[in-house]
């Protein structure tokens, strides 16, 4: 732990020393953007920076891949502690509470844009996106960048083989079960699976049915939040999944993105996972498939509400050199322009984070030629967000997700029933929240 921290400090120090040299030589202020985008996404991040750099001469944005989300966040924190933070760092939604509690380390985006007199309209962002990253007074703290939500993907060929109509995908959870049973009867190895089980089957499930995940508006109201996802509806849903698992209709395939491979290989005929998997499925599925809306329980009043997002935002770390802020603000204006955003949305499968980008994409006819790509945004904007569906902000969220994953695994393997497991997860998760509250109280 200490070793890796030290080496990244040294690297950060070297990077900054180098930066100082280059800026003197070119008289261009360099803005470092630490991110976690790989493969095709990394290329597109590079394109965005190149376009911005070509559009003006004073600032140069340099995107640097710093490892996976948790790694780049740790690296940025280590660099901050050493006194040489990067200017912009991409942080995943799970790290939001940690970043937001770091008063004095982070420059809130709304302040930055106001001070630099850059045009900035927080209302232009999708409600489900901006509410996730706003403080209690409604001010946007970080810059939305890549957001996704949960959708259902179905294998059309497997559906036809089972005598089901792919044009009429299951809308509710009971329909998912019926379809899974038929798929199973037609010889499919696995009817239904899910990626990111905590995010899809509990976090967004709660928002989609307008029930609380934790107190104080799911934590948006403060660090005193305590978990509540052991309510009757969540217990009912997890118990249903457990029963379907027993019948072989639902198959557990792993905690994070691993289950996707069992959909693209044709083994599982249905999967609920991130809308950001669109490009991946498109590239590797050798069968007809489509995107459908996330299922819900029709007997729950008010359902479906709206889903919540996942993904990451860009955080500005406090700078000693105040000249940096001007460049960062200019870059953010460029980044949130409809052209850049709609391009990003169309190429990656992430949702368009501004309404203007959504309109532009619609006008360009993208949704006609790529059916299903607008389902994610329709889910997010289904209804105005409520206290239960604005987002989640939990301290020590990494540990809490681990606890949830572990307890769910004990349900799928039949060691516990849903009620026992969710009660235990709430109890252990609350201990983590208490710890976080203690570490972040003055």
């Amino acid at each position, binding site marked *: 732990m200490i070793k890796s921290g030290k080496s990244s400090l040294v690297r950060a120090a070297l990077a900054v020393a180098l930066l100082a040299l280059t800026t003197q030589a070119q008289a261009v202020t360099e803005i470092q953007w630490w991110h976690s985008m790989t493969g095709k996404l990394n290329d597109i991040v590079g394109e965005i920076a190149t376009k911005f750099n070509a559009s003006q001469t004073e600032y140069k944005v340099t995107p640097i891949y710093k490892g996976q989300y948790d790694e780049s966040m740790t690296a940025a924190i280590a660099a901050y502690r050493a006194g040489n933070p990067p200017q912009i760092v991409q942080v995943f939604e799970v790290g939001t509470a940690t970043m937001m509690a770091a008063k*004095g380390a982070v420059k809130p985006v709304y302040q930055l844009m106001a001070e630099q007199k850059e045009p900035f309209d927080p209302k232009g962002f999708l409600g489900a996106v901006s509410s996730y990253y706003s403080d209690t007074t409604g001010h946007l703290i970080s810059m939305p960048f890549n957001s996704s939500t949960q959708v259902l993907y179905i294998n059309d060929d497997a559906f036809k083989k089972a005598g089901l109509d792919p044009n009429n995908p299951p809308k509710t959870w009971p329909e998912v079960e019926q379809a899974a049973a038929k798929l199973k009867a037609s010889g499919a190895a696995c009817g239904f699976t899910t990626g990111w089980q905590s995010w899809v089957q509990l976090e967004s499930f709660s928002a989609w049915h307008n029930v609380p995940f934790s107190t104080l508006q799911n934590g948006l109201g403060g660090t005193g939040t305590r978990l509540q996802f052991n309510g009757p509806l969540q217990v009912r849903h997890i118990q249903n999944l457990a029963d379907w698992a027993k019948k072989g209709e639902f198959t557990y395939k*792993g*905690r994070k993105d691993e289950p996707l491979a069992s959909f693209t290989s044709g083994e599982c005929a249905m999967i609920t996972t991130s809308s950001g998997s669109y490009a991946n499925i498109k590239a590797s599925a050798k069968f007809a498939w489509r995107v459908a809306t996330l299922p819900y329980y029709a007997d729950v009043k008010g359902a479906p509400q709206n889903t919540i997002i996942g993904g990451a935002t860009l955080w500005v770390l406090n700078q000693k050199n105040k000249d940096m802020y001007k460049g960062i603000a200019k870059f953010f204006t460029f980044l949130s322009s409809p052209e850049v955003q709609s391009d990003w949305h169309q190429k990656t499968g992430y949702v368009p984070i501004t309404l203007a980008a959504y309109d532009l994409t619609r006008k360009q006819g993208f949704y006609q030629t790529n059916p299903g790509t607008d389902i994610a945004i329709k889910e997010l904007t289904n209804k105005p967000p409520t206290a239960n569906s604005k987002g989640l902000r939990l301290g020590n969220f*990494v540990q809490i997700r681990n606890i949830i994953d*572990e307890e769910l695994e004990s349900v799928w*393997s039949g060691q516990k029933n849903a009620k026992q497991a969710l009660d235990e997860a709430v109890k*252990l998760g609350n201990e983590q929240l208490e*710890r976080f509250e203690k570490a972040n109280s003055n």
Partner: protein
Amino acid sequence: MEKRVVFKSPWLPYALVAPQLVITLVFFFWPASQALYWSLLIQDAFAARTQFVWFDNFRDLFNDPRYLASFQITAVFSILVTVIGLSVALLLAVFADRVVRGARVYKTLLIWPYAVAAAVAAVLWVFLLNPTLGVITHLLRALGYDWNYLLNARQALILIVIAAVWKQISYNFLFFLAGLQSVPKSLIEAAAIDGAGPARRFWTIVFPMLSPTTFFLLVVNIVYAFFDTFAIVDAATGGGPVQATAILVFKVYQDGVQALDLGGSAAQSVVLMAIVIGLTVVQFRFVERKVQY
């Protein structure tokens, strides 16, 4: 008359050991003391607020049933890795020692896995045993055995034990082979003339003469199982299912690096440090007595 060679200069001996001392202090004692200090703090990730909480971190740890369960898992895991790793390596070394033709090729191939990084070793085994894609999984299914380490705790433990053993076997093999080659041929030949069979010769001559090597490897393997295996766990099972493979060192990494709970993580490393110090003392005080040098 003094028989030992002594330095006449008063400072030269200190100057000669100084580099070693500096390295030990800077790279071992200083980080260890930092871990001790940190284990008494609760701090947010950005170090904006730091509180000195005495032993709260330790109290939280030992009140956590999952942390206590992790001890048991670590014990089972370390024993399995050490015993299986040493037995298989010894068996291979004995065979390699007897091979006449192609001995070099055989030995080289056995040494290969040591060059593979721990995480890669884990991924290799995951590819073979993945519940969806694994080759071995398909074979097991064909034999009617349901292999799914994502939900089956015992299978998950088997997976990480296999990966950890496979990674360490080359190292053990090298030392055993060197040990075997230093056993005097004359002793074995004399025993053979007296009518001792290969098994008898092995257990009464070779095995006791290997005991210094075995003891050394025992210490090294236990330390390996305790500290060097987190990459394997991280890449293969992520500590799951439930907590079935969350060994102590993996929890240190998870809580410290991924979850940024530095105080809690430091407290765990202090506990781990105490365990390894304890184990080493026991090994050197009690096991070493049985070793014949």
